[in-house]
């Protein structure tokens, strides 16, 4: 039967991508349906119980700046908070939280239930309704048909999911959940490139069977950081510690002896696994001279005894898993509550997507999350948010939106995926961002919240708080430029104690703040007129101290801006572009880049080829047509004072 309600946007999947997608579309005023095979696992953390970390927390803060749910839920569920890289500079500083799985799920579910315009329905989806090359709705397992002109697929590892424990295979999307095989088969009929990836999890342990007293403890940081710009440590539940254990030579011997029954080393697993998150058997094979590996023992939550031993992901047979776990000091009597396993799943080549995350082949169909070859809750949530935004923009008949590489890690993520594709599960790292110094965790709101407000994602409370902060920063920056310290004055004398060379002339506060020896607190103490909002004070300080580097990155951005905004027509015939090498031509035909900037980042496409494309586009337009230049955006300078 046809469901009587007509929706604007349907989201398939209730994981981190699906929930953010559904929330974003609904916040933007679309009648939205979230379809999941289980309402009880909305917002489930399938892998390790943690949110954030290097590069990832940057994404979480961007999601938050755009009104998303992940940071808020983390502040309600986090049982240990730390700041990584605290001494390596503000741009690479990253917040990481251990999260209670149950509290996290509950937080996400209550945000979903509180969202007007968003309906949830429990049933697996088996098919898409596609008419004239465009999606028109979905069909559930029981034949129920939901109609909508925009459909977002966020099926995670469920498409053709196959789990491995030793040489035993079973079908599943996650331990305890069935795969989506019918849908997978249906999707394989679409003109989209499909490949397989692999990921894995460690065995889970019962805390009561572990000698925790013999392990190193690791507590969170004080003062305790928060994830959301609106967060407060008072929201956090009770805090817990993690522990660190170590594998030893005996552990490694056990693993080596079990390799003949490893699906990884006997060729049973074909999908490519991540290089940065190898299974323990991989680590021991590839780095044979290492005698020990760390195992971070993470609590799964406040109300459970289960522990997540992060670092020993494995697909070895269960008897080997038991032996290897029990060889670790402190784990001698360990009881495994769930075996570790590897999972292989379908993903779609993200090069078949537009920057809106809409597929090129099927109008109205969007992909977000692991289906695009990424890994990680944060990467998934960020894509979900973007797909939700663009589905809603399409409903409003507005142009799609995607941040540029110099505006957000979300922009880096999408640009990397759709121009380079991926061979392994794609994870964010700060080294992927060439504009790293601009894309900081601390300024995600200044980069994105105004845009979020325009899109209709940011509510009044967030907007008011943000506007106040931005105003404070601007006022304070002006004040620092106008205020001076005179040599010989008491203020100068108080500063001289900290300076390597005493002040010899008049300096503005702004100049002084650039000195490495001085902090914002030193300057604001001069006349106690400084601002007390710590977030705003941090911005003032970073922007002053990093001004030279930030200006240099800005120059780099301005230089390429022209090409970034230059759209390549979708009917571009690359065979007609004279002078292109066959190799370059093939790549351009295969990828159909949306802009000249994106074309320039396709490996093998040379600067000369870009020149040829420019010349060709000009010819194509002829003399009478509108000039190329009218297409080029004005290159508005990114507002320096807020970056």
């Amino acid at each position, binding site marked *: 039967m046809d469901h009587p309600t007509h929706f604007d946007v349907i989201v398939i999947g209730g994981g981190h991508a699906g929930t953010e997608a559904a929330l974003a579309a609904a916040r933007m005023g679309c009648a939205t349906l979230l379809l999941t095979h289980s309402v009880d696992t909305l917002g489930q953390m399938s892998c390790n119980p943690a949110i954030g970390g290097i590069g990832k927390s940057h994404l979480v803060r961007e999601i938050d700046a755009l009104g998303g749910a992940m940071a808020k839920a983390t502040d309600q569920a986090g049982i240990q908070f730390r700041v990584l890289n605290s001494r390596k500079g503000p741009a690479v500083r990253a917040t990481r939280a251990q999260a209670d799985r149950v509290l996290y799920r509950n937080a996400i579910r209550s945000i979903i239930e509180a969202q007007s315009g968003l309906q949830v329905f429990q049933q697996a989806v088996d098919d898409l309704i596609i008419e004239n090359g465009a999606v028109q709705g979905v069909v559930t397992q029981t034949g129920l048909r939901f109609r909508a002109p925009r459909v977002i697929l966020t099926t995670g590892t469920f498409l053709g999911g196959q789990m491995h424990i030793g040489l035993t295979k079973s079908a599943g999307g996650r331990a305890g959940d069935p795969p989506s095989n019918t849908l997978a088969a249906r999707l394989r009929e679409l003109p989209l490139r499909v490949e397989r990836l692999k990921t894995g999890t460690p065995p889970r342990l019962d805390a009561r069977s572990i000698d925790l007293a013999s392990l190193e403890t690791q507590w969170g940081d004080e003062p305790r950081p928060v994830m959301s710009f609106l967060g407060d440590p008072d929201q956090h539940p009770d805090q817990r510690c993690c522990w660190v254990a170590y594998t030893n030579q005996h552990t490694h011997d056990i693993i080596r002896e079990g390799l003949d029954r490893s699906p990884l080393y006997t060729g049973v697993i074909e999908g490519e696994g991540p290089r940065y998150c190898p299974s323990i058997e991989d680590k021991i094979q590839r780095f044979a001279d290492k005698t020990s590996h*760390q195992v971070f023992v993470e609590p799964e939550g406040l109300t459970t005894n289960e522990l997540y031993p992060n670092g020993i992901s494995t697909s070895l047979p269960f008897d080997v898993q038991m032996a290897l776990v029990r060889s670790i000091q402190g784990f001698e009597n360990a009881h495994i509550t769930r075996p570790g396993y590897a999972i292989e799943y379908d993903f779609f080549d993200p090069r078949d997507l537009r920057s809106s995350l809409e597929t090129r082949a099927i109008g109205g169909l969007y992909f977000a999350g692991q289906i695009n070859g990424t890994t990680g809750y944060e990467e998934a949530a960020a894509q979900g948010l973007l797909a939700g935004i663009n589905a809603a923009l399409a409903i409003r008949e507005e142009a799609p939106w995607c941040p540029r590489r110099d505006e957000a890690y979300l922009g880096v993520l999408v640009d990397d995926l759709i121009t380079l594709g991926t061979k392994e599960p794609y994870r964010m790292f700060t080294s992927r961002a060439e504009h790293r110094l601009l894309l900081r965790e601390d300024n995600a709101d200044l980069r994105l919240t105004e845009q979020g407000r325009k899109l209709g994602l940011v509510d009044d409370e967030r907007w008011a708080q943000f506007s106040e902060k931005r105003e404070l920063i601007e006022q304070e920056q002006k004040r620092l430029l106008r205020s001076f310290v005179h040599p010989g004055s008491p203020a100068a004398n108080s500063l001289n104690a900290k300076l390597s060379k005493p002040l010899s002339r008049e300096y503005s506060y702004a100049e002084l703040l650039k000195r490495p020896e001085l902090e914002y607190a030193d300057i604001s103490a001069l006349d106690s007129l400084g601002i007390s909002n710590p977030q705003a004070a941090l911005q003032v300080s970073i922007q002053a101290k990093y001004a030279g580097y930030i200006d240099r990155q800005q120059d780099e951005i301005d230089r390429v801006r022209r090409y970034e905004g230059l759209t390549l027509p979708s009917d571009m015939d690359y065979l007609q572009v004279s002078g292109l090498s066959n190799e370059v031509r093939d790549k351009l035909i295969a990828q159909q880049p949306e802009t000249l900037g994106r074309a320039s980042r396709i*490996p093998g496409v040379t600067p000369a080829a870009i020149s040829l494309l420019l010349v060709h586009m000009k*010819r194509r337009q002829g003399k009478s047509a509108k000039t190329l230049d009218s297409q080029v955006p004005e290159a508005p300078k990114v507002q320096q004072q807020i970056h």
Partner: protein
Amino acid sequence: MSLLVGDSDTITAIATGPGAGGVGIIRLSGPKAFSVAQAVTGVTAKARQAHYVQIHDRHGDVLDQGLLLQFPGPHSFTGEDVAELHCHGGPVLLRTVLRECIHLGARQAAPGEFSQRAFLNNKIDLVQAEAIADLISSSTEAAARSASRSLSGAFSTQVDALLEQLIRLRVFIEAAIDFPEEEIDFIAESDVLERLESIEASIDSLLAGARRGRTLRDGLKLVIAGAPNAGKSSLLNQLAEQDSAIVTDIPGTTRDVLREYVQIDGLPLHIVDTAGLRDSADAIEQEGIRRARTEMQSADHILLVIDSSQINNTKDSTTLIAAYKGDLPPAVPITLIRNKCDLSETPAFIDRDKDVTEISLSARSGDGIALLRQHLLSAAGMSDSDSSDFSARERHVLALEDCAHHLRQGLFQLKQHGAAELIAEDLRYAQDSLGSITGSFSSDELLGEIFSSFCIGK
């Protein structure tokens, strides 16, 4: 980093063909074309009028005299503001002027880039477009061919070795940033400071080699210095007159500096004769001496001339040179010329065994000049004996200088205990600079290096 560059910037290039010609043209196009031209000439030119100008460097010293023409956009070849500096054609001089333009904010143009801009601004019709496309692809090919030629052998090996060192260092620093929870303290274990200093030393020696190699193509700036009346001008005349390939003869733009452009067996020489070095109370002479010192700073080679009839000939070169210690820049190679050997009744000879090569000659009679010519050829890397130099192109030298600049910046950050992310940033820029010689290196390749070097991940 993308190699793409938008049209918002100002490009410059030597518009005339390579080698020595009567006149050489430096062309500038883009928003800063006029301000750069004004900065090197001091003249605010009228549109489409030829102005007779002096071209000077950033210190205010005159390099050449020539013509400046300005064509405001859109009525210009490229459709943008275009300035042309018509100079005397010596390659060394043109290179010097080009560098001044780059120093002032212009960028060296890519092959075919002026034509490309002309086309994009509707200055060339559709029929000509085909030719432009051909030009871009063929000039790129030509550049690639010559690049691969110049990248063969020693230069390529050394650049690769440098790149390898730089990547190793970046692997440690980026791993420390992206994987702080690993047990290894990547930064502490890698002796970052030591590695960075060693890379800096490598690039300095590479640059020295590249600069020497560049003289093969572009020639050598030779400065003749010494006490008054040591015979410097005679030596200049001797080198110039004996060669039939004198290109131009510009009278001194100041009282005290004379320039000649000559070729010795195909090696272009830009010879500068300077005022005699001595303590003087005369204001004009002091100015001449100051200019002599400036010229020596930018020399590829200095001929220090002494009058051998006026000194005790048993004095060794170290003692003789020591007298000029305050004037001679430390990094520039020197040849000691014992002039007037006819008067001191010593034979012409060359002695390469000392710290500084000595040549005994007579600029007046011409005796020993052949030895000097041969010596100059070998100093420019044009003899077989010196195979460690390489034929680097100007853009290679610029890229290496850029790289060295970022490395120094990174070293400074490191010594200031700057944040790891800032050191990482400088090293990234340093590698990007090398990338214009070696090809680009993506962030994914860097991650690949990290994963193959360390056991990372949980």
